[in-house]
């Protein structure tokens, strides 16, 4: 560098400046969005907990700790979240495993059912459980007609029904998170273990399982953090004793307008989440969250006590599994095929996962209300739905807000993803953490903070406010998906195009975008679907008259359980199924071309 003449070093400096400016411009929209609609409103809400009309005050916290009620609710929230996490991960593991080892066609089928559950509205799925577990519901009907019980049992509004609803809601998330890691496990490794003398059980527990652990860890934290901020399932399926912390926040805001106290509960919730994250990072390392880097255990191997115990446990599990397998006669089966009991288990779980939403379909055409079995055939509920202007308005608004969110998230998230993947800059890790923070901060806190802010600047009840709020929660997913897409993109193709005479825009148009198109489309759909199903922010920010579809659904279902909702559920379910099918077609066509 010293040998360069001054003029060229000045040019180099100018080029570097230009590059820095370009980088800043790529990241700026996202940073501004998050600062304005995440950091500021959440910060304000937290500040409200100690800073009311009368100046500084700890009254809210005194109220919070004065009664054991809030502490108990926090405990219940943690208990429900913990069991939800354990059941979702343990139950989801075999499914993710089977999908990761299945042949391409089979994989597409299995994945369709998981995605269908994943994208079917939480509301639709929770509502379905009301119908299934009700006194005159599917399960009671089944049990009485089989003669197992004489009178219908109370299956709803208890810990069990909440847990069923929660696991049902979050298991697809666990499966998809684990799958992301399992897909990257080299399939020759278990085969290699087998040629080296490892029996199937040992090969699984000593080779495959340790390699899949980052996925398990990531799935567990994703499910736990989502569960802790959940209110739909406990509100619809739980009784008083299953009240979760976010429900308290809703009460404070919507019924008593006690912002200070809502802020104090939010602080408590946020602290709990932070503690969970810190503990998690200490134990497992958060790098596993993104599923991209190796688990910390592999970089700095603790050859100590804990490791030896873990190894001994895995060895034992391997031995036990092998002994169990040895009991069954071994035919001339192909070793590559997964064992039948596993396949059976996976299909049972997948059917249970999809069934609730499917059961809505016959009920929506029945004339006997929501009692099982459905009676007669009528289009009455669909007519009522179409005749009522509320549903049509809600649908229009949801589509509008969804499209707006999709477009805005793409416009803001894609350049940031480019920067995070391609740019060589310091503080990438911090930047990524900042971008992902809307996932970590419980949705309810964001929603209440935005409500307070929107109320003061007149954005409550506007589509713009909803789009902004939804973009905050959708943009991390867009950035993550786009980062994955960009990592797989071979940048030499761009260089090849440029060497063939294509200018940057032409390169983008003829090479980069056509290849990235499918990935961008799926990012867009992700953002759209996130917004389309979003209730927490819409609950406050959409105002009384301008409800989105989930808000309208929520209002109806908390008021009265009517068959019209079954009709709406059916429409939503079919809409999502078509959307997934179309997206899959699109993806296949782009792969084929």
């Amino acid at each position: 560098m010293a040998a360069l003449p001054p003029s060229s070093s000045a040019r180099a400096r100018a080029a570097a400046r230009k590059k820095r400016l370009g980088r800043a411009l790529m990241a700026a929209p996202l940073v501004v969005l998050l600062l304005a609609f995440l950091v500021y409103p959440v910060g304000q809400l937290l500040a409200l907990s100690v800073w009311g009309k009368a100046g500084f005050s700890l009254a809210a916290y005194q109220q919070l700790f004065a009664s054991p009620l809030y502490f108990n609710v926090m405990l219940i929230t943690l208990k429900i979240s913990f069991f939800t996490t354990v059941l979702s991960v343990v139950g989801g593991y075999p499914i993710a495993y089977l999908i990761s080892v299945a042949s391409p066609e089979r994989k597409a089928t299995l994945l369709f059912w998981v995605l269908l559950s994943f994208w079917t509205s939480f509301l639709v799925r929770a509502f379905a459980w009301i119908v299934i577990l009700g006194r005159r519901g599917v399960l009671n009907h089944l049990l009485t007609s089989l003669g197992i019980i004489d009178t219908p049992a109370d299956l709803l509004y208890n810990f069990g029904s909440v847990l069923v609803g929660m696991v049902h809601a979050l298991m697809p998330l666990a499966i998809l998170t684990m799958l992301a890691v399992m897909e990257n496990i080299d399939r020759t490794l278990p085969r290699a273990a087998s040629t080296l003398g490892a029996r199937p059980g040992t090969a699984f527990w000593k080779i495959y399982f340790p390699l899949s652990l980052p996925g398990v860890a990531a799935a567990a934290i994703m499910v736990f953090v989502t569960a802790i901020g959940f209110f739909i399932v406990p509100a619809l399926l739980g009784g008083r004793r299953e009240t979760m912390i976010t429900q308290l926040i809703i009460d404070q805001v919507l019924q008593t307008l006690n912002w200070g106290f809502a802020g104090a509960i939010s602080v408590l919730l946020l602290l709990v989440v932070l503690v969970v994250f810190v503990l998690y990072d200490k134990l497992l390392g958060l790098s596993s969250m993104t599923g991209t880097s190796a688990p910390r255990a592999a970089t700095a191997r603790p050859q100590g006590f804990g490791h030896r115990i873990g190894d001994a446990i895995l060895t034992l599990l391997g031995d036990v599994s092998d002994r169990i397998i040895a009991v069954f006669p071994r035919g001339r089966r192909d070793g590559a095929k997964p064992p039948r009991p596993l396949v059976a288990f996976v299909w049972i779980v997948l059917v249970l996962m999809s069934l609730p939403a499917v059961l809505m379909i016959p009920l929506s055409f029945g004339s006997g209300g929501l009692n099982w079995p459905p009676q007669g055939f009528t289009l009455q509920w669909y007519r009522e739905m179409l005749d009522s202007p509320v549903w049509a308005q809600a649908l229009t608004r949801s589509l509008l807000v969804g499209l707006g969110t999709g477009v805005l998230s793409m416009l803001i998230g894609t350049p940031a993803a480019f920067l995070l993947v391609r740019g060589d800059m310091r503080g990438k890790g911090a930047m990524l953490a900042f971008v992902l923070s809307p996932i970590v901060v419980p949705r309810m806190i964001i929603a209440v903070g935005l409500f307070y802010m929107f109320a003061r600047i007149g954005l409550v009840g506007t589509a713009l406010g909803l789009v902004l709020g939804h973009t905050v929660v959708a943009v991390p997913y867009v950035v993550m998906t786009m980062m994955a897409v960009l990592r797989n993109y071979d940048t030499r193709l761009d260089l090849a195009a440029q060497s063939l005479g294509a200018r940057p825009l032409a390169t983008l148009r003829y090479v980069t975008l056509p290849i990235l198109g499918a990935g961008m489309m799926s990012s867009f759909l992700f953002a759209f679907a996130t917004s389309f199903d979003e209730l927490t922010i819409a609950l406050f920010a959409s105002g009384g008259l301008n409800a989105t579809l989930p808000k309208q659904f929520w209002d109806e279902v908390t008021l009265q359980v009517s068959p019209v909702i079954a009709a709406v559920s059916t429409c939503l379910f079919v809409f999502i199924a078509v959307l997934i099918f179309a997206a899959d077609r699109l993806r296949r066509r782009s792969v084929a071309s």
Partner: protein
Amino acid sequence: MSSSSLTVHGLAKRYGEFVALAPTSLDVPAGEFLTLLGPSGSGKTTLLSLIAGLATPDEGEVRIGGADVTYRPPYERDLGMVFQNYALFPHMTIEDNIAFPLKMRKVGAAEARKRAAEALEMVRLPHVAKRFPRELSGGQQQRIALARCLVYRPSIILMDEPLGALDKKLREQMQLEIKRIHRELATTIIYVTHDQEEAMTMSDRICLMNAGRIEQLGAPGDLYFRPRTVFVADFLGESNLLPARISATAGETLDIALAAGAGTGQAISNGAPLAAGADVTVMVRPQNITVRAPVDGSGKLKGRLADVMVTGSLTKLYLDAVTPGLPPLIAAYPTRSLSDEHRIGDLLELDWQAADAVAIADAGAH
């Protein structure tokens, strides 16, 4: 190290309509280095997977050391396999990787460590025991994969294109290394490759495969100089393949007439019986063709020089036969000096010895 023989009898595998391996039989004596050679999709990896037990055959049997292992799982076959991508366990240290098969065989920890160290000595990487696979280079990972396979002294070692990912220089070095280990341990090795040079330099015998069946099985020299089929002649090294018809037979020596009336001459049989009147392909290796000028009709063919290529030790001449209907020809000789006597466009006389022309029966004539 104990070493076992391998017998494959009538082994076949289909995937739906696709015949990955037609019924195939093969005998490999203990201690032999046998290479499965062929283009991609020729069935060599399928055959290896069936031998390893990683796939189940539709019919036929596999015997290792005389024992029927056809439907035994891989972990009961006592064989070692080196995978194309090495398949080192990323979450284990090098030492743990190498000790893994010993652990599976219930060898004590101390003994396992000792033997892992010995195996590392053998592949000349004694200092990497505590590292993780991704901290090593491709060539080093390859050696570790080999060590992990050698450490438990399997009676047969299977290698699936083990050097495919290495650069040329490293590949040659590893070829020597594997040869040395084979010599020292006298173990049976089944080696899969699509690199014909690698097959020629390393093997006791080559099993050349094509479209799911064995084209020819024999010593490298046999396949090179006495190919049974045109495919073999074409696949191994460069060759001139001339269509011809047998006019008379006298023992090993055959009188032939080249197609399109290009001339007559003599050739030898590749071992398969041939009768007069049969259509054959005559193979002559480039280094067995001599060229000279001026053209005086004293050779077998005339050709016009289309291109000259000096590949270091060899000079290759690309010629167009003057007689229409004959394919382009290649002649090669050791490069003697910088300036070559032949110019592009020259008309040259081509000649070869009868003993260097091998007649191969055309596919339809079987």
